[in-house]
């Protein structure tokens, strides 16, 4: 477990994993309520609904009640995004349903999260679903895991039970390689009462660690913990051709978002896949000229030389160049009700680039509950498999482990245009 959580003032995206029974909705409701995100009219609304359903106290889980269809069935069927701010930091919560048949939703929520809260019911301990959630968080590369042992109020805030659950979890985390790869923290809590979320309260004096909100406030934002290579997929080329303005006549700006690393004026760069080399002449953000730019900034880059570059190309630093590939090996989560067909051609979208793709070999699929590898010939919704794709166009990829942006891709079914798969390059 690493211990380098540092303070910063930016934005943190995190997800919550757990089923309705674990108190996930109550946890989110409590976070929103205790950080004063819930305003009076919303509270009145859910308080009325609570009364209508015959409940004595206000049911905070109603705050995350979503669609009519979900209320009718009493379940969550899709990822919902919630927001709160503490004044020092803005938070985006991806709230994903936890049942097995919603693996695809969990993967979706995990794809943008830098921290996952994995909920465990203190009465039940580490369950199959805990293992599933942990494996998926690991697979999708979430660097920070908070294991929240919830419903402590129902076991009289018993420290020994909490310690046992933590020990069980650590043992399992070591088995799957999670303990070594990720920063894991534990916290006992009662989302219902609010113990250890925003306020400590008095029920667990034996716990001297951080509250949940303290952990969130200190958790590193994405891209802050390891050095990354500069990757700039070109989204759009700006050529104004304004005859009235001589300055703009030769303007050729490469627009995109820096997916990783940083860049400065004067840096030697290579444009892939063609390999043309040049130097950065200018970096612009709106009307501002920048001397340098960093990860996650959307900028316009101008080069010293006139190079034929279009959407789908990637600008990298010349000393960090990578070789375009026409075959990729990846873990793929299948998202569509229509199973994968090895006979068909799909579209792989990677950064701003697309390529037609055919399945090479499916090595195995992973049982998300037992983590067993099983041979398979097909892939159905919610399955996760390791397989290879053969590509019509070269892609500029990194392994997902080293880069969550250039290591990721989606699979699109050309006949429906649906997004049918999510891939993480090995």
């Amino acid at each position, binding site marked *: 477990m690493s211990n380098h959580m540092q303070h*910063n*003032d*930016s*934005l943190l995206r995190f997800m919550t994993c757990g089923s309705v029974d674990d108190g996930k909705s109550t946890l989110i409701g409590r976070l929103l309520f205790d950080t004063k995100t819930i*305003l*009076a*009219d*919303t509270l009145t609304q859910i308080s009325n609904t609570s009364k209508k359903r015959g409940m004595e106290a206000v049911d905070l889980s109603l705050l995350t*009640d*979503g*669609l*009519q*269809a979900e*209320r009718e069935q009493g379940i969550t*069927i*899709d990822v*919902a*995004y*919630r*927001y709160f*701010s503490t004044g020092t930091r*803005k938070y985006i919560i991806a709230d994903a349903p936890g049942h097995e048949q919603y693996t*695809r*939703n969990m993967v979706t929520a995990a*794809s*943008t999260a830098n921290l996952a809260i994995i909920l465990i019911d203190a009465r039940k301990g580490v369950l199959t679903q805990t293992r599933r959630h942990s494996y998926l968080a690991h697979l999708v590369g979430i660097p920070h895991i908070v294991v929240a042992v919830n419903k402590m109020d129902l076991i009289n805030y018993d420290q020994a039970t909490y310690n046992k659950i933590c020990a069980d979890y650590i043992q399992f985390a070591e088995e799957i390689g999670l303990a070594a790869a990720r920063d894991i923290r534990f916290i006992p809590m009662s989302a219902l009462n609010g113990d250890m979320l925003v306020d400590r309260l008095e029920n667990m004096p034996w716990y001297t660690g951080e509250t949940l909100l303290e952990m969130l406030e200190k958790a590193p*934002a994405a*891209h*802050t913990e390891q*050095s*990354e*290579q500069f990757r700039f997929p070109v*989204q*759009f080329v*700006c*050529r*104004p051709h*304004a005859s009235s303005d001589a300055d703009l006549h030769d303007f050729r*700006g490469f*627009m*995109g*978002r820096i997916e990783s*690393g940083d860049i400065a004026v004067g840096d030697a760069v290579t444009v892939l896949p063609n390999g043309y080399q040049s130097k950065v002449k200018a970096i612009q953000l*709106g009307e501002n000229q920048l001397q340098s730019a*960093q990860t*996650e*900034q*959307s900028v316009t880059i101008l080069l010293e030389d006139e190079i034929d570059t279009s*959407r789908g190309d990637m600008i990298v630093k010349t000393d960090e160049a990578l070789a375009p590939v026409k075959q990729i090996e990846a873990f793929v989560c299948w998202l569509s009700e229509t199973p994968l067909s090895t006979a068909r051609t799909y579209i792989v*979208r*990677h950064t*701003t680039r697309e390529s037609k793709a055919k399945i090479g070999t499916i090595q195995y699929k992973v049982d998300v509950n037992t983590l067993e590898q099983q041979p398979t010939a097909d892939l159905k919704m919610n399955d996760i498999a390791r397989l290879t794709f053969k590509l019509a166009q070269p892609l500029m990829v990194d392994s997902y482990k080293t880069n*969550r*942006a250039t290591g*990721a*891709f*989606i699979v699109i079914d050309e006949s429906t*245009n*649906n*997004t049918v798969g999510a891939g993480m390059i090995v």
Partner: protein
Amino acid sequence: MTTSKKTLSHLDWLEAEAIHILREVAGQCSNPVLLFSGGKDSLCILRLAEKAFRPGRFPFPLMHIDTGHNYQEVINFRDQRAEELGERLIVRSVEDSMKRGTVVLKTPDEPRNKHQSVTLLEAIEEFGFDCCIGGARRDEEKARAKERIMSFRDEFGQWDPKNQRPELWNLYNARSHKGENIRAFPISNWTEMDVWQYIERENLGLPSIYFSHQRDIIMRGGAMMPANVPLTNGEVINVPKAGEQVVNMQVRFRTVGDITCTAPVISDADNVSKIVLETATTTITERGATRLDDQTSDASMEQRKKEGYF
């Protein structure tokens, strides 16, 4: 290799994300349009579009679906802003749909927000737009909390909440077949507070009705309604009925919508920094305070979106 030790502020991050989304629309769609009402959210998007595409022109025109129930100063502001930017503004009006008979009102003064869907779909067909960029935010309403950043609509403009395309990382899928449509929401992840902070930071101009002013108000259906508002076509709307008392109050609008269903709030905030402060301390949500059409039922927004509403 270098480590980026500094992280972006939340506004810088949100701005960068929105610019990325706008450029993805430009890169993936062949005929997009930006919906622009003159309201605060769409004014933010115009600023983001400047940052995304200047010194080039916007790769899309602007379009306003005019209900006819708009304040004159908002319409003037809309036209002025489009002219300053030098971008093409298309206006299509619900009243034209009424003349065509595609929009039929039950009562002459009823709110026209939901009728905008019809006019919008007609305009999409007229111009063959494959993507509409809008200023909706997920924090506005619970049906929006589950909507994608690139949201797919079928030939009838319908949103199917149970059958949305999965959206992972920042790999957006804006593909559509002819006749189908994508709605793109670059400020999905912004809250009302983020919008006001961005307006303050970027020093954006706004229509005057967002700021505190004196106005004649009547109480109707438990809400404050602006009284005797002159429309752009010369008519006057929200005329007090017998027994309704007119009171002059100091108010501002938190959202700009159909006059008949958008209530002002009592406020003395006459500049953006005062509004930021007021937003931080308010106890009522934006739509709760001001949008009467969302209060019809628990699912009214979800219902409207299924029918093609933004």
